[in-house]
């Protein structure tokens, strides 16, 4: 077990979280790089006086118990996910110094996606990446950083680059991204290497303390147990075999060129929330409660269908909103997803004075067909005695049913004549109301005037409603 002499204040005095009787020593094997690196981090925390604001994330790997040692906030996370967990911490506590401490399996294999994206977003965190070229914890299997030819429990004949790829160089990958401010690779070998590592860790944490973003320090580190070597031979191996493949250098240092980001706490106020939701204005009551109207209302099951862009869905939501304002129970269910990509759209609308059960309209008593395919598809589903309203500007074919009422309305032409071709949908619902008389046209107009989002188009929409209403009165015998 690695003994830590002269404890920095970044460490607990006694490692009481650690089970067993030895509360002065770490759980790492003798000669393990983790213990050394822990001490360097604890010293940096002490020197920078950041112990209180630091949140340290232990990964899954031999350092899963790092929280036994560091006197700061501690989180243990799932294998490879520390950078995602760190993102959550950093976004919620922007004043936190977030440290994501990870091994090579954790960071370079299972968590590749999380590290790349956290780096690319430039999250406020410091990554300490301990590259020992092996899975220490689980019994010495191949890591993404295992050297070619190296023997591990899953490469018993040596790592074969032809089938397993070459060791991944994470500093080289991370430094390609724009957001990281500082990327460096060091090694815990001799006194010089240890000093350099300490400087790199301190630099990364200091830059975070000052408000700069994402730093990445990769440290080549010994795993005497996994490598089946003495501690001394392990250091030699780092120097002779690892460093030639993983060059030690500063890959990126843009701290001086960047401006620190201000710490903005996430603290939405009630006022801001209500404003953002659009709930800060007083509600307008459009219609007086009309009990007789509600009592006498017969349930309307409407299907509206047409090309995307004909405002089919909006015709439905307009009817729904109108029903709601009048005190009816209403539902609206759209077609959605890739179905819309083919350019067709349809929706189900139910208006009722009773609680609506299923919002799915299988057999409408009203079909509004804005184009030919819609008429063909939905005509057979209309209940006998129902109403089929056809946009005769577009639909050439005829409704074949003899047990329904058919209204042919040149909706697109009516809309066009009012200078707003896109408002054919308004013509459709106006025609529906004009014929069925289920709701008064003036109430539709009131709704449009009060609720229509594009204020500049209200006048033209109202003109379309009036024109379609007139068309029905003039041409259709009620």
């Amino acid at each position, binding site marked *: 077990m690695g003994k830590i002499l002269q404890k920095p204040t970044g460490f607990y005095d006694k490692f009481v979280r650690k089970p067993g009787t030895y509360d002065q020593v770490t759980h790492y094997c003798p000669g393990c790089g983790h213990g050394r690196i822990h001490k360097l981090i604890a010293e940096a925390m002490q020197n920078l006086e950041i112990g209180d604001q630091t949140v340290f994330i232990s990964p899954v790997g031999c350092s899963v118990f790092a929280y036994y040692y560091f006197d700061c906030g501690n989180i*243990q996370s799932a294998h490879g*996910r520390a950078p*995602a*967990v760190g993102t959550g911490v950093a976004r919620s506590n922007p*004043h936190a110094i977030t440290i994501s401490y990870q091994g090579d399996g954790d960071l370079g294999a299972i968590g590749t996606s999380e590290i790349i994206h956290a780096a690319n977003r430039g999250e406020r965190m410091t990554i300490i990446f301990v590259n020992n070229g092996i899975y220490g914890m689980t019994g010495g299997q191949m890591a993404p950083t295992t050297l070619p030819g190296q023997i591990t429990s899953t490469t018993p004949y040596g790592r074969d680059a032809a089938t397993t790829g070459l060791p991944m160089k994470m500093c080289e990958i991370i430094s390609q991204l724009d957001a990281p401010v500082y990327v460096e690779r060091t090694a815990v070998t001799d006194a010089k290497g240890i000093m350099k590592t300490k400087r790199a860790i301190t630099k990364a944490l200091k830059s975070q303390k000052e408000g700069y973003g994402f730093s990445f320090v990769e440290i080549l580190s010994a795993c005497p147990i996994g490598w089946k070597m003495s501690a001394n031979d392990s250091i030699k191996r780092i120097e002779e075999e690892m460093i030639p493949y993983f060059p030690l250098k500063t890959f990126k240092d843009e701290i001086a060129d960047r401006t620190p980001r201000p710490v903005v706490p996430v603290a939405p106020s*009630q006022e801001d*929330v209500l404003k*953002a*939701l659009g709930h800060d204005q007083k509600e307008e009551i459009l219609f007086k409660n009309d009990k007789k109207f509600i009592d006498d209302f017969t349930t309307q099951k409407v299907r509206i269908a047409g090309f995307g862009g004909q405002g089919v869905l909006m015709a439905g*939501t307009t009817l729904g909103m109108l029903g709601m304002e009048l005190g009816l129970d209403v539902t609206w269910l759209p077609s959605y997803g890739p179905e819309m990509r083919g350019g067709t759209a349809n929706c189900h609308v139910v208006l009722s004075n009773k609680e609506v059960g299923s919002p799915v309209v299988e057999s409408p008593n009203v079909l509004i067909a804005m184009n030919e395919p819609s008429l063909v598809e939905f005509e057979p589903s209309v209940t006998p005695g129902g109403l089929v309203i056809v946009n005769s500007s577009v639909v050439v074919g005829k409704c074949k049913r003899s047990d329904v009422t058919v209204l042919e309305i040149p909706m697109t032409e009516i809309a066009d004549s009012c200078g707003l071709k896109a408002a054919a949908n308004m013509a459709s619902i106006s025609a529906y109301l004009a014929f069925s008389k289920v709701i008064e046209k003036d109430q539709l107009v009131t709704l449009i005037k009060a609720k229509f989002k594009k204020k500049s188009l209200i006048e033209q929409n109202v003109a379309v409603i009036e024109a379609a209403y007139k068309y029905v009165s003039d041409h259709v015998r009620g």
Partner: protein
Amino acid sequence: MKREFIKGNDAIAKAALLAGCTQYYGYPITPSSEIIHTVARVFPKAGASFVQAESELAAINMVYGAATTGQRIMTASSSPGISLKQEGVSYMASAELPCVVVDIMRAGPGLGNIWPEQSDYDQVVKGGGHGSYKTPVLAPNCPQEMCDHTILAFELADKYRTPVYVLADAYMGQVMEPVTFPSEVAKVEKKDWALYADKDSKHNLVTSIQMNTIEMEKVNIRLQKKYQEIVANEVRFEEYCMDDAEMALVSYGIASRISRSVVDELRETGLKVGLLRPITLYPFPTLRIQELSKRIKVFAAIELSNGQMVDDVKLAVNGACPVEYYGRMGGAVPTHEEVVSQVKGFYKLYLA
């Protein structure tokens, strides 16, 4: 109070802010995407934070990290995304971190399609990830409940320090209905277990590992105690025409809406059919069903899956009376007529 004619998905996003949610982490997937769209639009305006994560796996782990700070955190997805989130939910259940996960179910298995199913029941109600854990599951059946249950989910999550699911189907996400929103933002208390990145809270520890078997067993026992408390206090359900019913339909979400219309129609023809709608799927209204099984002649679970909830009905009934099931899969929503004819068939079989 503010009333809007609004989609279930949008109602969830807006309700989250009113529940005091400060952060959302998610990845888009139909038919849940309106949630992330609305969050992206309104959260930043309110001073809350939103991250589009690189995957559902990352999103739930961001939620894990953010939840350690004691704030109210949410993610939402649909079935394939929920499969990916299971890792994080298991970790959060173990580390006892609160959060709200919304699942707008689509058809599976595999990529399936974007139409409604209720086939995530098992993976959401039974724990889903590894380990002996459960999460409270709320099952809204209208946009108003999408709003109310989202707010309730945050309260339960904080109260019991656990992830809580809002489990809805594609149609519940897509349908628009009137919703009345509360006019105040819920107050969120400071937590004594959370990490605020300061001197007072720094000795708090968030972890799910215990190498000592006895210690890990203690964690498990603590969790089971919590679940017992949840079962004792949080069962919610709704009954419709049950007073004199001889046959009980059991269904939730969109299926319960269809079932309700079916009950209306069958009642008109004199059949004594009622509807029991579980509002919490975990905890399931087991005791109530047990009680009812003394007088109900037959139960029929109507659900959009191969029959997942029906298992819980059977467990509750425990052989006291027959339990039937009818459902469709693949995103096919049973028509009113289909359900009527199935239910009539069951009625004839056991009650004629």
